[in-house]
C-alpha cells in the first residue's frame, strides 16, 4: 500500500472511532490546507457525508479570501458550519492591530501573543463549551444566524501534524484536555495500537488528531491526488510570494516563492528549498515559547 493510502486509512479509522464515541463531536476548520484535507477525509470516512459540525474561529482579521472560500465550500458540501468569535475584545478594540501604533510601554498596547490568546484561544474555548454565542450558516439563505445549539462539545477533531513544530510531536491521536482546556503533556494516557482514549470525565474534552502522522509534503501530495480545492493564497499570483501557512493578515507574512500551483509547491518542498525554514516561520506570534504556551492553554 502506498504511503498516502496508508495515512488515509488510519485517518479514516480515527475519524470513525471519534464519530462513534463522542456524541458531541465537532471538527475545527481553519480553512487552511491541513484542516481542509481533514474535511475531505471526513467525506471519505462517511462515504460522501459530513455528519458533524465544523467550527471556525473568526478573528475578523482573516484574509478575506479565506472567508469567501469557507462559505463557498460550506454551501457546496452542505456543511453544518458554525462560527465563533471574541466579539467583546473586538468591540473593545483590544487587539494587536488596533494598538500596535501606541508607544512602547503603553498599558493599552496588546502584544501579538495576547491578541492570539483572546481572539483565538479564548474564542475557541468559549465556542466549544457553549458559553459564548455561536453563529450557524443557514444553507438555504447562505447567511449566518445565531445557533440554537449551545451544548458543549466533548470531542474536537483537529488537523495538527507532528512535524509542524516540537510540541506537536508529543501529541496522541486522542488527547484529553481538562476542565480548563489545559493539556497536561506529562500525564497523557497510553495509546496501545488502535485503542484510543474514548472515555472522559464530565467537564473535560478530548482533542482528536487524525493527521498526526502526515507531513506537509503528504498534505500537498494528497491535495493533488484527490484534487481538493484550496485557497488561492497558497499560490504565487505573480508577485513572487505566497502564503505557506494561513492566519490573520496582520501577523502573517508570505514567503518568497514562485510556486503557482500544487505541482510547483510539491516540487519546491521536495527540492529542499524550504527545508531549513520552519513551516510556521511566517507566523509572527510564535516567538520562543509562545506556541507551547498557547498550546497548553488550549489553542492549537
Amino acid at each position, binding site marked *: 500500500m502506498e504511503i498516502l493510502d496508508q495515512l488515509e*486509512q488510519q485517518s479514516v479509522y480515527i475519524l470513525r472511532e471519534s464519530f462513534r464515541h463522542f456524541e458531541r463531536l465537532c471538527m475545527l476548520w481553519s480553512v487552511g490546507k491541513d484542516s481542509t484535507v481533514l474535511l475531505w477525509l471526513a467525506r471519505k470516512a462517511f462515504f460522501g457525508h459530513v455528519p458533524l459540525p465544523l467550527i471556525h474561529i473568526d478573528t475578523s482579521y482573516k484574509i478575506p479570501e479565506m472567508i469567501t472560500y469557507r462559505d463557498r465550500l460550506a454551501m457546496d458540501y452542505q456543511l453544518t458550519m458554525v462560527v465563533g468569535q471574541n466579539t467583546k475584545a473586538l468591540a473593545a478594540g483590544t487587539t494587536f492591530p488596533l494598538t500596535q501604533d501606541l508607544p512602547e510601554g503603553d498599558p493599552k498596547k496588546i502584544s501579538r501573543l495576547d491578541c492570539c490568546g483572546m481572539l483565538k484561544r479564548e474564542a475557541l474555548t468559549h465556542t466549544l463549551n457553549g458559553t459564548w454565542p455561536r453563529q450557524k450558516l443557514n444553507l438555504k439563505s447562505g447567511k449566518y444566524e445565531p445557533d440554537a445549539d449551545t451544548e458543549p462539545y466533548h470531542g474536537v477533531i483537529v488537523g495538527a501534524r507532528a512535524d509542524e513544530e516540537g510540541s506537536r510531536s508529543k501529541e496522541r491521536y486522542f488527547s484529553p484536555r481538562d476542565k480548563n482546556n489545559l493539556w497536561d*503533556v*506529562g500525564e*497523557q494516557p*497510553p495509546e496501545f495500537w488502535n485503542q484510543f482514549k474514548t472515555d472522559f470525565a464530565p467537564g473535560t474534552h478530548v482533542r482528536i488528531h487524525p493527521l498526526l502522522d502526515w507531513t506537509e509534503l503528504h498534505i500537498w501530495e494528497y491535495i493533488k491526488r484527490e484534487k481538493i480545492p484550496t485557497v488561492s493564497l497558497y499560490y504565487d499570483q505573480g508577485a513572487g510570494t505566497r502564503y505557506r501557512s494561513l492566519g490573520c493578515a496582520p501577523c502573517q507574512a508570505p514567503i518568497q516563492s514562485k510556486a503557482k500551483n500544487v505541482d510547483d509547491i510539491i516540487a519546491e518542498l521536495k527540492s529542499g528549498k524550504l527545508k531549513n525554514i520552519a513551516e510556521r516561520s511566517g507566523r509572527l506570534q510564535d516567538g520562543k515559547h509562545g506556541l507551547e504556551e498557547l498550546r497548553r492553554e488550549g489553542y492549537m
Partner: protein
Amino acid sequence: MNIVIVGHVDHGKSTVVGRLLADTGSLPEGKLDAVRKECQRTGKPFEYAFLLDALTDEQDQGITIDTARSFFKTAKRDYIIIDAPGHIEFLKNMISGAARAEAAVLIIDAKEGVRENSRRHGYILAMLGVKQVIVCVNKMDLVDRSQSHFDKIEAEFREFLKEIGSVSPMQFIPVSAVNGENLAGKSDTMKWYKGPALLVSLDQFKKAPPKSDWPLRMPVQAVYKFTNHGDDRRIIAGRVESGRVKVGDKVVFHPSNKISTVKSIESFNAPARKEIDAGWSTGFTLAEEIYVTRGEVMSHESLAPLVSMRFRANMIWLSKKPFKPGRDYKLKIHTQSQSVRIHKINKVIDASEAHSALSKNQVDRHDVADVTLDLRQPIAFDPISENESTGRFVIVDGYDIAGGGIIISNEKDDHEDFRAEAKLRDFNWIRGGVSLEARAERFGHRPSLVMIVGKQGIGKHQFARAAEKALFGKGLSPYMLDGTNVLLGVDADLVWVESTQAELVRRFAEVAHLLLDAGHIVISTTNAIGLGDFSAVQSLIPDFPVLVVDIDPSKKGVSSSDLQLTGKESEEAVIQKIYDLLRSRQIID
C-alpha cells in the same frame, strides 16, 4: 518506517537520536550551533538530548517524559524515530510510542549493563508485537571498547529474551553515541566488531508483509445509514485487518452467526472496486439485509475467529490503582467493548528482576502478568499467534486505559457446547419468506429477550406481566415467557436429576429463540428452571440482544446487569425503566 528507540533511562537514547539526526544532515541549519551556544551561555555541558527536548517541561527536568518524533532519511527510505522515555514513571508513554513502531532500537549502557528497564522494555516490545529489534550497547568508550565486555552483555540479554519467549534481536552493535562511533558509519576504533553500523542495520529492517493472504477479519466499526441527499445505502464500515473479500462473497459475522453476501464495496472519490484487502478502511453493502452491530467480526465461512467468554492473556498494567479480582472493568478489543473480570491470576512477573514469578492476588502498576479473563458476553477474537489485530486488547478502568495485553489462548468456559449448538443451528436455519427486517418494520421494534432475574418471591413475575401489558398497550409485540410454562409442556418428559438442569436451560433458550425469530420482545422469568446464570441463555441466543434486569434489594446484584432494580419501585417506574432500556439499545426507535 516508524522506529522506536527504547532503553533504561540515561543509557543514551537521546544522544543516539540526536547524533543520527546530526550525522545524516537532518537538522535544520544552525540548530545544533544554537543549542551549543545556549549551553555555553547557561554554563551547562552540551547534550544531544537538549536538541530533542522541544518542551520547557522536559528541559526543566532533564528527562524525556513523552515520545517525541524526529524525521530523517537514508538513501533507502524515510524514517520516523520515536524517542520513548526510559524513566519508569513514563512507561505508558514508552508504550504509546512503541505500539506504533514497526521496529525498535534498544540501548544498553555498556558500563551499567542490563538494567530493570532494559528487561522491561524488551518484554513490552515482545508483547506489543515489535519483532524486529537492534540492540546498541552504548558508551563503549567507558569500557575501553572491550569486546569481551560487549560479548557478555549480548549473551546476557539474548538469554533473557529467550526466557521470555521473545524473538532474538537481529543485531547487537557496540557504539559510542557521543563520539558517533558505529552510528552513521563504521568506526575503526572497534575493529573486532565485524557487523554493520546502526544506520546500515536500520536499512535492513523489513516492512511487515501485507496480511492479504491471511483469513479474512473485518471488525465492524459502525453501520452507517446517512439518509440525507437521498442516500439509502446501509453500509457496514470497518477496516479489513487481514485477508481479502470480493463482491459476491458469502460472509459470516461473529458472534451473532449471521450470514450474508457482499453486494458492493463502497467508497468516496475513488474508483469502484470488486475486491478489497487488508489495510483498507472501507465499507460494504450486503445483499441480504441483516442486523449486525459494532464489535462483530466479519469473516468467511471457513477459517472463522474464535468465540468465547474466557481467554488467557499476557498483559501489562499501568494504572496506579491495581487490577483486582471481583471487580468489573471494561475490555476493548478491535472494535468491541465488553465488561470483563479476572477469572484467575496465573502469575505475575516482576520485570525488574530476571526470572522471577510472583504469586500475587492483584496486578500492580508496571507489573507484567499472565491472567485468565472472564467476559460478560461472548466475543470474537483470535489468539495473537494467529492474528494480531484481533488478538490484542486494552482494559479501561474508569475513564482511562489502565492496561493492555495479548490473547495467548482460548480457555474452555461453561457454555462452549451451547455455542456450538447455536452455531450449527444458525448456519442451517431454514428461513421463511418474511425477513426479520420486515417483521421489525411491522412490529415497530427489533426482537430482544428481556430476562428478569433475582431471588424467588421478589416480584419478578409481577413486573414481567406489567411490562408485557404496557408494551403491548404501546402497540408493540411483547410476549411473557414464564419458565413454568416451558416446564409444563416442552419439559414434561424430563425426570429431574442434577444433570437435567442444563437441558432445562437449553430447551428454555430454544423456545425463546423461536419467539425471537418470530420478531417478539420476549420478557422472561426463569426461576422455574433454576437459572442462576443468564450467560448460558446468551450463549444459545447469540443472534439477538439479551438484556438482563436484575432485582435485588441489596443492590449488589449480578455482575453488570443492564438494569438494576431493588424491587421496591412502583410498577410504572419499572415499566418506564425497561422502556428506556429498550430505547437506549435501539430495540425501539
